[in-house]
């Protein structure tokens, strides 16, 4: 089935968590665009805000704990954060935007059959009869590689392995023919061989359906198979964004460079020490006025006390938020 796909554009998204009198800017003025059918990798280490960003896009954050603000988050002509956002979301999320989470066992309801969980939202969004929804659910399970699909619909989540369950959640995410899939570490909880199979599956589905994709991960190596473009997050901000070749072969932000060097050093032949990034000193917080990477950066100077914004370096579409970006060949 071929569908008209729209562009997702996120303009100045902010999420602030408040708890016990403390305030934490988890997503800090993040803007990006995912072109129709494009695959964007969102990469960063734990606590950088990448999952919060996904949850905010999906409207899944608890408003009691997190305050979410954005100029606009548009999918085509629909604004998910504008006036009438609630109606826009209920028509869009789960239908035009599908989602896959890290842990399929938590994402699925343990006391409902797999069929029931798959059919409910199809009946709501697509207005299908129970019979038509069941047929479609079985077809989707077959498509994601689950044998004996009709039988599995009557089963419960605990009867399936982690890899199989993730296939079920992928089938659910695809049920309403979304234009965009948000995948939050969908393979992190899986074994290496199963991870490779799930990646193959999502890539094949993406090709056959022309899906846009936002793939959130901490695994830089994994993205080389998946992403057209990569956004690197640090302390709630996008510090560098560009095509996969620009980011991996010509990284410009000192954090991107250090992260890549660290991953690459795992694969070097030598027996010397691994390349690391120095830790931030105890007590240094991320809510800094200036560049958040400053306490760990080897290149920092006085200019870094004010905050850098994303600017184009070298080629068009390759942007970096750094006062002292590293030129190619530099260290």
């Amino acid at each position, binding site marked *: 089935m071929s569908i008209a796909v729209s562009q997702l554009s996120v303009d100045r998204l902010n999420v602030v968590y408040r708890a016990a009198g403390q305030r934490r800017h988890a997503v800090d003025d993040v803007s990006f665009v995912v072109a129709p059918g494009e695959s964007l990798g969102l990469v960063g280490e734990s606590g950088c805000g990448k999952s919060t960003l996904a949850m905010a896009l999906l409207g899944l954050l608890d408003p009691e704990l997190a305050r979410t603000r954005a100029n606009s988050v548009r999918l085509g002509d629909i604004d998910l954060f504008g006036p009438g956002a609630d109606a826009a979301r209920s028509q869009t999320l789960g239908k035009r935007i599908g989602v896959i989470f890290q842990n399929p066992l938590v994402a699925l309801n343990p006391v409902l059959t797999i069929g029931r969980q798959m059919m409910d939202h199809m009946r709501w969004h697509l207005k299908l009869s129970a019979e038509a929804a069941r047929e479609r659910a079985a077809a989707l399970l077959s498509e994601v590689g689950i044998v004996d699909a009709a039988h599995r619909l009557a089963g419960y989540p605990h009867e399936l392995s982690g890899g199989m369950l993730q296939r079920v959640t992928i089938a659910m995410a695809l049920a309403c023919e979304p234009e965009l899939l948000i995948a939050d570490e969908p393979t992190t909880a899986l074994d290496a061989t199963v991870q490779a199979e799930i990646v193959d599956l999502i890539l094949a589905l993406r090709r056959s359906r022309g899906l846009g994709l936002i793939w959130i991960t901490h695994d830089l190596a994994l993205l*080389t198979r998946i992403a057209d473009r990569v956004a690197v997050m640090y302390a709630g901000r996008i510090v560098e964004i560009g095509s996969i070749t620009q980011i991996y072969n010509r990284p410009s932000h000192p954090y991107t460079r250090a992260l890549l060097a660290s991953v690459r050093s795992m694969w070097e032949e030598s027996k010397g020490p*691994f390349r*690391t990034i120095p830790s931030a000193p105890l007590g240094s917080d991320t809510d800094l006025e200036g560049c958040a990477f400053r306490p760990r950066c080897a290149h920092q100077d006085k200019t870094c006390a004010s905050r850098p914004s994303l600017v184009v370096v070298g080629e068009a579409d390759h942007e970096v938020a750094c006062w002292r970006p590293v030129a190619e060949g530099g260290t």
Partner: protein
Amino acid sequence: MTSLLDVEDLAVTIPVRSPVLRRRIASIHALRGVSFSVSAGETLALVGESGSGKSTAARAIVRLVQATHGSISFNGQSVLEARGSVLHAIRRNLQIVFQDPYSSLNRRMSVGDIIGEPLRAHTVGDAASRRRRVGELLAQVGLDASAFVQYPVAFSGGQRQRIAIARALALSPRLVVCDEAVSALDVSIQAQILNLLQDLKRIYGLAYLFITHDLGVVRRFADRVAVMHAGRIVEIATPEALFAGALHPYTHSLLSAIPRISIGEPLPARIRLVSPAPSPMSTPAGCLFVKRCAYAVARCGAEAPAMRTQPDGRQVACHLVEKGQPMWVSAARSIKE
């Protein structure tokens, strides 16, 4: 090098009992007879996917789970039969670092008390000398002396793992079992902890039994790698030999599934496994990999392959390896042709 730790035919079987009468109705074969050794000062990596038994092996060695069969000898003494003062002495020299530095540190104890606890338990020195030793350990693992009076909550995951390592080293052990000790950490922090472990290995002449699911990490870190599948070891080799070419088809598929950072370079062909891992409750007669293996022949289903040492010293448990050559490669080629 003489071996420090010798594990012979170690098996761990966990009974599954009926809900009411508690009768044994089945058995989970977590470990189905593994043998390996670790020499003094050596790092042996034990790798495999979840459920392969690698953590059970680690726990059986430090006697956190009970072995049902086999023997473990540490420094010439039987670990499984040791009692009282002999066990006490073994434990001084055999320490463990766990995966999750959040649950493995008592949040109500100060860092100084956590690191000093093994010294108190083994009544080493007096209070003042123990305090000095803790200070020395803090410095060695790269933590500030002020950490002494702080509590785990003040520290990040990487720093907590440093605390756990300091505690494991307090009694100057000869072998440290690292059970997925870096798996929960971010990649840049993983590298820091691996470097720390390498430095400490030099300072203390330590040996490591390094349990991990991440083959990438072991490449530079390990002296030898043992690959586990379904409770058995299927291959033991140096990382250089392993990454140059696996002898066991399972190792081969595992290696081919690791994502690598390479843009534009052709990826190695992925070897797909044709079925999931066998149930830990099953006890098939043949090779446990047979249903997943694309190259299996009749013999593989009938007879379990023994671990055989190849001319170059590598060990592999596969019928289709002859004189250090994986014959399944040519078998696959002839099928294609």
